[in-house]
Every structure is written in structure tokens, then in C-alpha cells.
């Protein structure tokens, strides 16, 4: 009796004596799959419907932002950074610009800061609405998608009316917000200040957004089937979330009420009143619920900001050619998906020496193998959707 045979016999005996065991099947989910939100691949070992392990394979969308940053000037980089997380472009522009401003010692005027705040919150609403619309779709409910996206369109119209872009505003400049186009002598001075009627339109749109959250409540939040699919599914306890670097609504849904808007004040968040939403459960339902409530909080912030926006200039004096003095800085902000930060190293030139991008979804996704161990295939979809990642943000 040779060794191999003996080992085989032993294995089969163990298998029989423990329970009827089946061989695990490798299930490739993605890179092209309806619920991966882009090109993400999950190599899952499944035993029937039960997942024994999941290995996410990422990098299909790796665009090398950190390398690109080294060959681009600061102004050119501003146009790129809003494409990292494309559903909340403005929110990822702000920390980068603030990092450059701080290194250069420039303080943007107040009005610009408030405009930044309003636009950040509008993008937060837009991003969360993408989530609240597409998440029920993962669970098979198609209708919320249309009702929520219909109202999101109004937010996008506002963003476009202000910045000219729907997704990639490229509206921040070092020292303030986007100036008049050109700077020539002949030019009629076109300022990129708030267009007439925009503030009123914002108020009206916020009403619609609130209405839309109520519709979401009717269609999704209270739905018993939705609850059956999400309550208690994909539980991430707070300490695990912290260990894996989860941030934003994912962290807050795990019972850790940490919101950078209450700690980092490069935008005047200290002058507006809002609540940090958190939920104790750490399951898919809480992650959904936290985002839905955050839309309401953001509406509150926007409405307050509209009333508080001061008069004044839009741009501090900044050199036309940005030469950033030598130094290192880390600036982070509360992106709709969590902590979004830039570690900027300047060696004193027109281009960054090194730009480390702390993208939120990368960390948020890294918990997937841990949380999916032992889940069912349908739960995989539910959990993956509830983490609300954008593949551009994962792969950078």
C-alpha cells in the first residue's frame, strides 16, 4: 500500500466519519458581472451556496494616478483627482487643493470655502443617492433605481449649473474656486460665482431630495423582504472595521460615530449644525440606513449653508504658475464613502514629488474576504453592494 493511496483512504475515512463532504467549487464572479459595479473579480470557493473563501482580484482599472501625479502640474492634477471616485468628484478635489494651499500658505476666502462646502454636500447627496438607488437593485428590486435617480438628476443639474460639469467639476483652484475663464485684457470679466437663481433652485431641489428619501422609505426601508435580505447579513463589528481601515458610513454603521466633518475643518463644517449618523448593528441594513439618513443630514447642511454664505471674493491671490515649496503634508476629508486623503510630498517644483492617495473604497473593500467567509452567494451580492465602493476608487 503506497503512501498516496493511504493518504487517500485516510481522507475519505475522515470525510465519511465527519459528515458527507463535497468538493468546493471555484466560482469566478466577474470581472464582468451585473453586481460588481465595474471590473472587479471575486474568486470564490463555494460549497453549494455557502462561500468558504473569497479572494477579490482588483486592478483591472488601475490607472496609475500616483504615477500620473508625478508628471503633471498641480493645476493639471486637479482635473484628474475628481476622476478617482467619479460619483463624488468634488469631494476628492477638496483635500488635494487644501493640501497644496496649506503647503503654499494660501488661505482661500470664506465665500469660496462655503461654495466648496455646498458642492461637497451636493456630491455627497448624489453619491448616496446612487447607493440608495442601486442597492435595492442588487436585491432584485428594480423600481427604486428610477425613482431615486430621477431626483438625483436635479442635484446633478445644480452641480452642472454651478460648475459646468455633471460629474467632474474641476471647480477648485488653489486659493479658491474656478476663476473667470482666461485672464486676458480684452475679456469681459466672467466670474464663476453662483449664477442667478441657483440658490433658490437648490432649495427646491433639496425639497425633492427629501421627498425622495421618503419614497425610499416607502419602497425599500420598510419592505419586509428587503429587511429579510439585509438585517443581520454581513455583520462587521466596530473593532474589525477599525482594524481594516473602514471609514465613512461603513464605519459609522458599525457603531463607531466617527465623522471627519466634525474633526477636520478645512471647510466651515464647524459653523453648520448636523448630526453624525451611526447605527450599532454593522449589518447591510444599517449601512443602507446610515446612508439614507446622511442624505437628510446633508440636505440640512446645504440649506444652512445657503443662508450663511457670505459675500466677498472667490479667490485669494495665488501665483499663476504654481510652485509649491518643499514640504510634506497629509490632508484628509470626509468623502461620501469615507476618509479620503492625500499625502503630498513636494520637493519644490511645479509637480508633486510623490502623491499618495488614500482612496476610501480600497480600504473598504479589503474587508470583503473577512466578512464573506461562510456567507451565502446571495449574501455576497448583498454585502458587496452595501459596502458602496467605486472601482475607480479601489484601483485608482
Amino acid at each position, binding site marked *: 500500500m503506497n503512501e498516496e493511496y493511504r493518504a487517500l483512504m485516510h481522507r475519505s475515512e475522515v470525510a465519511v466519519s465527519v459528515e458527507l463532504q463535497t468538493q468546493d*467549487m471555484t*466560482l*469566478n464572479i466577474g470581472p464582468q*458581472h*451585473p*453586481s460588481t459595479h465595474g471590473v472587479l473579480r471575486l474568486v470564490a470557493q463555494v460549497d453549494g*451556496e455557502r462561500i468558504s473563501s473569497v479572494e477579490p482580484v482588483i486592478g483591472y482599472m488601475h490607472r496609475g494616478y500616483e504615477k500620473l501625479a508625478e508628471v503633471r502640474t498641480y493645476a493639471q492634477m486637479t482635473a484628474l483627482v475628481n476622476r478617482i471616485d467619479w460619483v463624488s468628484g468634488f469631494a476628492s478635489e477638496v483635500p488635494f487643493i487644501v493640501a497644496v494651499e496649506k503647503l503654499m500658505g494660501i488661505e482661500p476666502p470664506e465665500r469660496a470655502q462655503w461654495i466648496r462646502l455646498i458642492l461637497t454636500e451636493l456630491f455627497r447627496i448624489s453619491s448616496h443617492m446612487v447607493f440608495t438607488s442601486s442597492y*435595492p*437593485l*442588487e*436585491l*432584485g*428590486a*428594480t*423600481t427604486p*433605481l*428610477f*425613482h431615486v435617480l*430621477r431626483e438625483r438628476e436635479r442635484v446633478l443639474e445644480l452641480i452642472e449649473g454651478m460648475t459646468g460639469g455633471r460629474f467632474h467639476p474641476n471647480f477648485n483652484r488653489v486659493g479658491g474656486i474656478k476663476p473667470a475663464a482666461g485672464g486676458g485684457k480684452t475679456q469681459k470679466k466672467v466670474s464663476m460665482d453662483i449664477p442667478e437663481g441657483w440658490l433658490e433652485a437648490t432649495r427646491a431641489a433639496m425639497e425633492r431630495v427629501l421627498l425622495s428619501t421618503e419614497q425610499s422609505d416607502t*419602497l*425599500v426601508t420598510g*419592505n419586509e*423582504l*428587503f429587511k*429579510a*435580505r439585509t438585517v443581520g447579513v454581513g455583520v462587521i463589528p466596530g473593532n474589525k472595521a477599525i482594524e481594516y481601515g473602514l471609514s465613512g458610513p461603513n464605519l459609522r454603521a458599525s457603531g463607531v460615530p466617527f465623522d471627519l466633518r466634525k474633526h477636520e475643518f478645512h471647510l466651515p463644517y464647524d459653523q453648520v449644525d448636523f448630526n453624525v449618523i451611526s447605527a450599532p448593528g454593522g449589518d447591510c441594513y444599517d449601512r443602507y440606513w446610515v446612508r439614507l439618513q446622511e442624505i437628510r443630514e446633508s440636505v440640512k447642511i446645504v440649506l444652512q449653508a445657503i443662508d450663511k454664505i457670505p459675500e466677498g471674493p472667490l479667490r485669494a491671490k495665488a501665483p499663476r504658475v504654481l510652485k509649491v515649496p518643499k514640504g510634506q503634508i497629509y490632508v484628509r476629508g470626509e468623502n461620501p464613502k469615507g476618509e479620503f486623503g492625500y499625502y503630498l510630498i513636494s520637493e519644490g517644483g511645479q509637480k508633486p514629488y510623490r502623491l499618495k492617495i488614500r482612496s476610501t473604497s480600497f480600504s473598504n473593500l479589503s474587508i470583503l474576504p473577512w466578512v464573506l467567509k461562510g456567507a*451565502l*452567494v*446571495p*449574501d*455576497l*451580492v448583498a454585502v458587496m453592494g452595501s459596502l458602496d465602493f467605486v472601482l475607480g476608487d479601489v484601483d485608482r
Partner: protein
Amino acid sequence: MITGWFWADVIVKVILALAAMIGMALVAIYAELKVMSHMQHRIGPYYAGGRWGWAQPFADALKFIQKEDLVPEGADSTVFRAAPYIVVAATFATFVVIPFSPSLVARDLDLGVFYLLAVSSLTTLGVLMAGWSSANKYSLMGGLRAAGQLIAYELPLALAVVAVVVQAGTMSLVGIVEAQAAPITIGGLSISLPFLLTGQIVSFVIFMVASVAELSRIPFDMPIAESELTMGYLTEYSSLRFTMFFLGEYAAMISMSAIAATLFLGGYWIPFVSETALLYFGPFILIAKISLLVFFILWIRATWPRLREDQLQDMAWRWLIPIALLNVLVIAFFKVVVF
């Protein structure tokens, strides 16, 4: 007794039933597109065929058909090719016994209900064949889920029908309709009511839940589950075979609704319409009832999310089957003791 007329009769009936099935399936597809899109606050099909995009299902079918008919490399070619035929044939076979009017029925079998239950389950065999033979893991899982669903839901479905059969005292579908048309006397008042209103409401709910599960439509569409298994057992199908599955799915929806309408809503019969009028209007009455039930199924799809396979099993074994058993007991008790 097999004469030339027999075959002529059979051929005419087959063609008629086939035409009815395909026509109604196309209408159901169109209805789904339109109903869902309006519930989602959008227009839906608009251009095909001119007004309101009425030709969209035809356009879809034409588009599907002109695609290349692919058979995956590792597939069991014979089984893979045969599966859609089984699905369509099984669905088609159910139309044979459904009475559209007192006289318009392809074959009024004595064991009509029994035949229906047997034949409608064959659909799942086709689905299982498709899932297994596709050599695709998604398809396999979809097929297995479909099989699991069949086992879980065949029982409550049958039990709900048993309750009706007990009350009607016959297994012939025409007989069941006539039993509903027969007047019952309650306190000196003689009225005739469909079974839904005479004590079969529980059976009706169970029947509808089970038939939605058997049709694998939302909230029980796990065998297809686009966001999980891409398209389940349909993943590898294309061209004509996909079209057949597609049509079969909607035809099954029609046939299930027709069965439910016959068993619980009185089929081609409604109160206060004379026997002779029923001969002519019976089909329209039945179709109206079918439309109502189909609309309900579409409506559910446009609103609810999907359950999980284990939750479905849980629901079937822990709730529906005991309730259905109890229901049969109660009905039998009333039938035997009270009336």
C-alpha cells in the same frame, strides 16, 4: 376509433392552442414592459410598431432569433438543445385542459387538475436540464435552485388544489367551473359565487405564492437572479432557444394565471350571465381574469426585492405546507360535516 377526423381535430386544436399561447405570451411581455416602466415613472417601449411601441415584443423576438445559436464547448449538446423544447412543450400542454368556455376546451380530462399539476412541473425538468448541460457554474446553480424550488413548492401547490377539488367534488376543470356556477343556499338566499369567496381564500393565497415561486418570478426569481447568477440557467442560451425559454416563461405565467382563475375565480363563468352567453363571452371573461392575475404578478415584480433561497425553503416548509394541510382539513371538515 382513430380516423382522419381525429387527426384533423388534433391538428386544428394544437394550432389554435399554440397560437393562443404565443399570442398571450407576447401580450404578457408587452404588458410587463409597459406596466413596469410606468410604475418606474418612465415610458418604456415607444417606437417599435408606431403607437406606444406595441410591436416591441416582436422586435425583441426577432432580435433574439437573429443572434448566433451558441452551444458552449463543454456543454452536453443534446440535453442543452432539448431543454427549451421541454419547457415550451410542458407549458403548452397545460393549455390543453383549460376551459375557455363551456365548449371551448381542447380536452376536458376527468383528471384535469391532476394532469395540470403533473405537466406544469415538467417545466422545471427542462430548467434543470438547461442548468446542468450548460457547463456553466452559474447555470448549474440556477438549475439546482430551480429544482429546490420545485420540490419546496409543488407540495403547497398541490395541497391548495386538493382543497379546491374537495370542495368541487371533481377533478375535471370544467366540472370545477360548473361547481362554482352552481348556486349555494345560505339562509334561504340562493347565490352562486366563485370558490375564492366561498372559503378558498387561504388556498388561493397559497396557490398564488407557490405558483409565483414555480414561475421563478420576483420575489422568488433566485434561479435567474440577475445580480447573483447573471442569468442563472439562461446564461448560455442565445438565439431561438433563448426566445423559446423567454416565451415559455411568459406562457407559463399565463397558464398558471389561467389555472388560478379557473380554480378560484370561476374560470369562464361570472354571475348573472346566461349559459348561452357564456358560450360566446366565456373566453373573454377568462382572459380578463387572467389579465388581472398577470397584472398582479407583474406588479409584485415591479415593487418587491428578491428573497434568498434558504428563506424561500424556510417559508415553504415551515409555513405554507402546514397551513395548506390545515386548510385541506378545514375544507374537508366543512364539506363532510357541515354541508
